[in-house]
């Protein structure tokens, strides 16, 4: 790869030929704000929040799509750039509800962050505003299109990550909105509820329906772990508050999935907190289960296994381990069967 040399905010920067100004700036630790751009998606160049000033160019250029060139001189926060960004933000805010007080995305909203950074308090523009009803008819995704800034990230995610194309831009001009084909409800479209669109939405337009009003982003801790379902082994971030999983978010570093999930990994966590969970050891007495302590239960099991082994030999015992248990647990189970019970009768349902 050949390199080009350019100046960004006075700093000399080396970048791959063909890379964008945004990539070059990021490589040099210079942050240029973006809205429609998302690192896992092809750049759309739709929002113009990322514009920068380039010497000898009459117009401001979008950093997320414009390629670097040898000798280029870029300013990322010149007065002209800041003015342009404020203009974009004011336009967006002129048609945005600004009910951050109760918005799910509060504290985790790229529009809010930018308004703060560029001190845009309210819009100078008064115009027609969109009012769409909140759509919560499907099981998992709350769609508040009133908050949509038409950045098209969700469309890109559905197309380029998920290869589903369930959603696209419908209608024209002022009426443009993100919708499934024929503006059908999501649950009646080809949507597979992978939640990829929610993961990339920069604002509160697409949120996890079952997490609504359960916690603010800063109240939750994110714990990176592996999906409990299929063998792909997608990495997931569990968002936890008060000992409950509130929602699952994408981990973009996941080696097997790079942030993608299916419906089970993204939305299939509620079984963890099911009221049906076993919470006490149970011992059957006269055909009915009675709650017991671990002491009692383990002593009983140990005694019975030892007795049966004594009477009928070790091969009268068998252990079923599990493809849902960890490696460490499976290791201990086969060690237990072989070294303690004295039998190789140990298997799991790999074949099933």
């Amino acid at each position, binding site marked *: 790869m050949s390199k080009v040399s350019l100046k960004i905010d006075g700093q000399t920067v080396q970048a791959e030929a063909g890379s964008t100004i945004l990539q070059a700036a990021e490589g040099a630790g210079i942050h240029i704000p973006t809205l429609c751009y998302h690192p896992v998606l092809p750049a759309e160049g739709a929002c113009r929040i990322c514009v920068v000033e380039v010497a000898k160019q009459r117009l401001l250029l979008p950093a997320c799509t414009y390629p670097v060139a040898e000798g280029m001189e870029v300013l990322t926060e010149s007065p002209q750039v800041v003015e342009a960004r404020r203009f974009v933000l004011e336009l967006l805010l002129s048609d945005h509800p600004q009910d951050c007080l109760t918005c799910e995305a509060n504290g985790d909203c790229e529009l809010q962050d930018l308004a703060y950074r560029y001190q845009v308090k309210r819009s100078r523009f008064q115009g027609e505003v969109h009012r769409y009803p909140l759509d919560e008819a499907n099981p998992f995704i709350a769609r508040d299109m009133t908050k949509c800034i038409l950045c098209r990230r969700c469309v890109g995610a559905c197309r380029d990550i998920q290869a589903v194309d369930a959603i696209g831009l419908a209608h024209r001009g002022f009426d443009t909105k993100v919708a499934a084909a024929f503006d059908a409800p999501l649950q009646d479209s080809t949507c*597979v*509820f992978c939640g990829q669109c929610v993961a990339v939405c920069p604002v509160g337009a697409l949120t996890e329906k079952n997490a609504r009003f359960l916690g603010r982003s800063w109240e939750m801790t994110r*714990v990176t*772990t*592996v999906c*409990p*379902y*299929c*063998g*792909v*082994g997608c990495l997931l971030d569990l968002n*936890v508050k008060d*000992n409950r*999983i509130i929602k699952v978010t994408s981990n973009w570093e*996941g*080696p*097997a999935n790079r942030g993608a*999930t*299916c*419906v089970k*990994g993204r939305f*299939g966590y509620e*079984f*963890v*907190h099911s009221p*049906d969970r*076993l*919470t006490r*050891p149970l*011992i059957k007495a006269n055909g009915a289960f009675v709650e017991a302590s*671990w002491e009692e239960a383990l002593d009983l*099991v*140990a005694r019975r*296994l030892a007795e*049966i082994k004594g009477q009928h030999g*070790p*091969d009268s015992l*068998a*252990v079923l*381990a*599990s493809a*849902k*248990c*960890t*490696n*460490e647990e*499976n290791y*201990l189970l*086969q060690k*237990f069967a072989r070294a303690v*019970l004295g*039998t*190789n*009768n*140990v*298997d*799991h*349902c*790999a*074949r099933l």
Partner: protein
Amino acid sequence: MSGLGTAFGSGAMTNSIQDLGLARAFLVIGSNTTEQHPVIALQIKRAVRKGARLIVADPRAIELAELADVHLSHQPGTDLGLLNGLAQVILEEGLWDRDFVARRTENFDAFRASVAPYTPEFVERLTGVPAEKIRQAARLYATSRPAAIVYAMGITQHVAGHRNVLALANLAMLTGNVGMEGSGVNPLRGQNNVQGACDMGALPDVYTGYQKVVNPEARAKFEEAWGVPLPAECGLTVVEMTRAAAEGKVKAMYVVGENPMLSDPDLHHVREALESLDFLVVQDIFLTETAQLADVVLPGASFAEKDGTYTNTERRVQLIRKAVEPPGQARPDWWAVAELAERVQRDRGPVSFYYNSPAQIMEEIASLTPAYGGIRHERLGIQGLQWPCPTADHPGTPVLHRERFTRGLGLFAPVEFMPADELPDGEYPLILTTGRLLQHYHMGSMTRRVPGLNQLVPQELMEINPVDATRLGLPDGAPARVRSRRGEVLTRVRVTDRPRLGVVFMTFHFAEAAANLLTNPALDPTAKIPEFKACAVRVEPA
């Protein structure tokens, strides 16, 4: 598993999930990837959008079949005929990789002779797939490089499962599609830690890392590490355990996190077997159908409530991290097993089960398992490590068999076609095949407790072809009774062209319409996997 072990020397997925995206062609067989392994399906779909060729062999018109260049819709249980047919065309038309075959494989001549009779016309009669499509598929697979084979339980859950896998390995070797990115033979493992459970020796014939219990050296090594003499004979597989229980030979079982009452073939038999035990202990997170039969039930912790590792289908060992406390007195399985082990050996106590964390257990695993030798929790981070990872500074192995096969030379194995154990007849005229849905998982104990997933798919809908449905007088959504030689279930039907004529499809997610009351416990003689993917049934309106 066993098939790839024989051919290549390692039973695991040869390649990595991300590098599958580099394939120029895919042969997907016995895998409804978009529903069973959705995120791997993304790699395939994205590659196909960029021009990769796709061959799908499946008795149903699954979603990938709609994107395919060729869809081979074969009769369930005839995969082997089809695969031998593909090899025959590749040889006949001179599309094979002579250099690879000469340098890296053995037993080619015997294999070549064995597939000679499988002309496309003969295979058409065996499988119901038109001869021309077989030629087309063979040419696409052989002439696009690299080409990846992707398969799942639709290949292994047959009496010929082991042979099917050997036939896939034959195809990959014949075309030189092993040892580079975007190629290989890639079994997709069903549950999240099937790979790990196998790696850890939760199998009746091997210790960790597939070290055989019948090998005196391996046994001596584990005897020394654990400090006790160990049994020298192979143990029983799951299906053999329940048989032995019914015969009174197995008297007590300790079942952790499994639900054979729904997952095993021929459930009536499984219930009888478990009921005839003197003592049954079940450790699980829910009171499953199996737990209800237990004498003692121990409450386990879910994946979100413990630390440890899972190994995914691409051999990647990844950390799981505790996010919440288990409810009530539920405890991680590793804690319970260790406690139990200490108690059982109270008077003889030589085998140590003192561990203060899963990380410490992994150190013991690493010390006994060459492929895991360099795996330590503190090394795993976000990216994990793909085995083989023999030493503490080894970076892991994304692609197997690069310069040489694990066993040295790749072994071509002649494999003769064998029909399914149970074929349709006058009394049971349809073939039932089973599988999964996107929205549910395995026996449903987890996903059916997620209200939104139940809302998306609330009940079993057996798929049936419109022609069969009309003949039987079954409109879409009608209730039907499905009978096999082993039992019957009630279900509603979904009339769709997805299954081919004469084939019906059910999942095993729904206890109230448990397909495994119907399925055939006939086992593959080598891999001991039951034939879930084909049994004869009779369907009538209910």
